[in-house]
């Protein structure tokens, strides 16, 4: 058991504004976990799998994932993380994106996404969603790293 290790949050979001808003609301919800922000898919994947501080080599994490990234599709990242052979397959992934297209939501769940949140333009709803995410973060069971 590695209880002392807190869950770090990996946010993959190309829009700086969105990232800032998400971070602010997460902090307002009282979550103080470490947040690592990446604006493109490649550097995020590199961190997830290869960085000494990354979740693959160093402790549990939660991934906040935007589907529209400049260099690759968010669903590809989701598929990589949730792949059977991936060391991160038990890492919870929260998809946060602008689409509320049913087909796309289903696709994300099929790929193993844990929560799907639509970024609403209505700010109150958005803040509400983030607060719920905070609740979610406080109740998730961090999987044991069995190797």
């Amino acid at each position, binding site marked *: 058991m590695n209880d002392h290790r807190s869950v770090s949050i990996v946010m993959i979001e190309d829009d700086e504004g969105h990232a800032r808003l998400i971070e602010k609301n997460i902090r307002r919800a009282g979550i103080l976990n470490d947040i690592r922000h990446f604006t493109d898919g490649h550097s995020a994947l590199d961190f997830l799998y290869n960085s000494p501080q990354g979740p693959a080599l160093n402790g549990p994490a939660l991934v906040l994932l935007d589907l529209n990234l400049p260099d690759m599709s968010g669903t590809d990242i989701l598929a990589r993380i949730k792949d059977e052979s991936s060391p991160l397959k038990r890492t919870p992934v929260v998809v946060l994106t602008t689409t509320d297209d049913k087909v796309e939501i289903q696709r994300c769940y099929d790929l193993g996404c844990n929560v799907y949140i639509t970024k609403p333009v209505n*700010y109150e709803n958005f803040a509400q969603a983030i607060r719920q995410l905070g609740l979610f973060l406080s109740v998730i069971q961090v999987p044991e790293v069995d190797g």
Partner: protein
Amino acid sequence: MVRASNVFVGDRGRRTRRLLIALTIFGFLSLTCAVIIAAWAIGRTRDYTYWVNHTYQVEQAIADFRVAAERAETARRGYIINAQPQFRANYEQAAASLAPALDRLAALISDNRSEVARVATLRNDLAGLQQQRAQTLALVDANRMSDAIRAFREDGSRVLMARMRAIAQDMALAERTLLAQRDADQQSIFLTFETVLGIAAAALLLVIVLTAMTMLRYIRDLNAASGRLTELNESLEEVVAERTSDLTRANEEIQRFAYIVSHDLRAPLVNVMGFTAELDAATHNVRELIDRAEQAAPDIVTEEARLAAREDLPEAIGFIRTSTQKMDALINAILKLSREGRRVLTPERLDMDALVGQIGDTLQHRLDERGAELVIERPLPEIVSDRLAIDQILSNLIENAVKYLQPGRPGRIVVRGRIDGIRAIFEVEDNGRGIDPKDHARVFDLFRRSGAQDQPGEGIGLAHVRALVYRLGGIIDVASELGNGAMFRISLPQTLMTAQDDRK
């Protein structure tokens, strides 16, 4: 190029047809000519035969007369020489046949004046002769033989007889001449007949040859044209397939474009909205600070700072919010349209009576609220189409009708349908406020509305309806006048063929 060759074939065909008609008429004329000439020639031949016969009869009659005259003379002479009663009887017999023979001759040549004159001379001479003969014979009867012989020598009977012979010979000769002339005539008729027949035959032959040539050329043209047509047909299918795939590709491109645009437009909007909320929250703090400062140290609060915190900032934030919300609604509309374009259509048999009935039930509350009635002219024709799309089309149209009623007139919305060939026509007619004809095309455009903007809406409904109708392979139009209601007419294929079906 295709058109030009068609025109060429048509022109050629018309010319050929005209030529054939002319040739046929010419052939008929030639035949008619030949027949007329043949009939004429046959008539003439019959006449000729008659006249040849006539000539022989005349000759026969002349010969009969001469023979009788000679026999009578011979018998008289015999009687004078040898007064045997046998000669006397012979003479009587011959003399008696003279007059009838002359009569027959006269009847035969009654049409020929010179001959008639000759016969009259003959008749005179015969009368004189008969008289002299009778005298001589009477002398013989009285046994005055020497007187009789003297009378025979002295009277002019021999002269008369000679003249009569000459006349008869002339007549026979004249008749021969006539016959020769008629022969010549007949020959010329035959010649004419043969010439005309020859010409007619040549003409017919020409017609046949020309017709055959024309027909052959025409058939060759037709074959060539049909070959070209087959070619065109084949290439047409290719062209259609090509265009269809082009269109499909273009359509998919537009859908993707709309989707990406609306998506990417939304992302910055989230920021605008989010940070506006942050600003709003910050403004609250600033306002509280101003309030507190006003109470604690009024002299440091300038009028500008107070106005900015209490009025300018909330107003600006309010405008930003409403604009953003409106923009979000518009983007959602585009997203909805583009999503509708990507939805897979599932054709099924639709009981339109039930479907429209359900729409009516759903809208019943609004109908009651606005005092309008919905009349469904049952039975509506059944169609095979996508249920959701049809439901959305008709719901939108009926909803619009309920929305835009003419104030002061009880609303009446009629839905009717009929089959027209392989298409089904549905009409939604109302007695509402109508649409200005100049706006008829505009109302189907996205975000465009017509008339007084007194009803909520973004100008999406009809654009959505039109997109759906197009997707179902249909067309939609509107007939309306301002203030006199509107009628939306949709023409849909009775059976929806989806692109997947086409490819099978």
